[in-house]
């Protein structure tokens, strides 16, 4: 009797439905999760203005005034940048900024003025153009100084490059001259 039992085979567990169960888990995760990575321009805002903060004097020739009016038209120091041949005003802003910052890298100020009716898209593209200008300068300095791309630098070297080309941007409240409301 015992001997016979020893030769009996243990019945195997039917695992064919495990695939279905894991498929259901997989589909659940696909539905509830999202893969979109958040991308964007990382900027630092200034702390809220204090009451008794004396306005800082900045020499006029250190300032580059970038203006976006109510019709999303971009002008630099009062001259309107217009759409050229395959060159958007924003890329010509980048090239103007690179020249301006390189000439006066420690004391330059980029002053941004928008209007209440300026669309966010135009503002974003202007910010993008400014970041592009700084990135170009920092990239070329990193190559010159360390022989490496800015992205490959260690954090300390990156800080040094950032200090070599500091971002000096001043933003004022939007004007209402466009007759937005």
């Amino acid at each position, binding site marked *: 009797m015992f001997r016979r039992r020893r030769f009996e085979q243990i019945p195997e567990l039917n*695992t*064919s439905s*495990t*695939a279905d*169960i*894991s*498929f259901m*888990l*997989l589909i659940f*995760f*696909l539905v*509830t*999760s*999202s*893969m979109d*990575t*958040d*991308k*964007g*321009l*990382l*900027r*630092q*805002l*200034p*702390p*809220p203005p204090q009451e008794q903060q004396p306005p800082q004097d900045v020499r006029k020739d250190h300032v580059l005034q970038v203006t*976006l009016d109510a019709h999303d038209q971009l002008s630099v120091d009062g001259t309107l940048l217009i759409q050229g041949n*395959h060159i*958007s005003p*924003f890329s010509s802003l980048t090239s103007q900024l690179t020249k301006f910052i390189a000439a006066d890298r420690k004391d330059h100020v980029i002053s941004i003025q*928008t*209007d*209440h*009716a*300026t*669309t*966010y*898209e135009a*503002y*974003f*593209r202007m*910010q*993008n153009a400014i*970041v*592009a200008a700084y*990135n170009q300068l920092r990239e070329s300095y990193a190559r010159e100084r360390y022989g490496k791309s800015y992205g490959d630098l260690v954090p300390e070297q990156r800080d040094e490059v950032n200090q070599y080309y500091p971002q000096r941007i001043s933003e004022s*409240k*939007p004007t*209402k001259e466009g007759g*937005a*409301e």
Partner: protein
Amino acid sequence: MRRMQSIFRHSASREMPGLNLASMPDLIFTVLFFFMIVTHMRHDDVRVRYQVPAGTEVQKLQQRTAVINVYVSASQIQVNSQPTDINHLASLIEAERKKLSEENAERLTVSLKADKHTPMGVIADVKEALQRSFALRINYSGTSAADND
């Protein structure tokens, strides 16, 4: 010749072997784990209709746990999953910041997901509210675009 016949007869009587599916659950589990790692749970119920602008210099936002999402369109504002208005924005940011752990609260980043067509008046008000609540690291959310715009 006889040998040939025997071969044919043999194959005719043989049954098709069943495919061994024992490793299929393992395969699917691998795919499942891959998805669990690369994705993250969607927890915001976004009520604001928005389309972010495109830029060439956008970078990936790091440290997702220290991020507060602010959705802005011309008429609506939403912080994480809570719709609000401009007057309550600053206090709501403070409240959301309290929910974060201490180190995350220090390196807090506000991801501003604003619609392309939002007027700057609204954006400026939002930024002022963020300044008041000392959420100073902001990320203008956008998609990456090719250079030829």
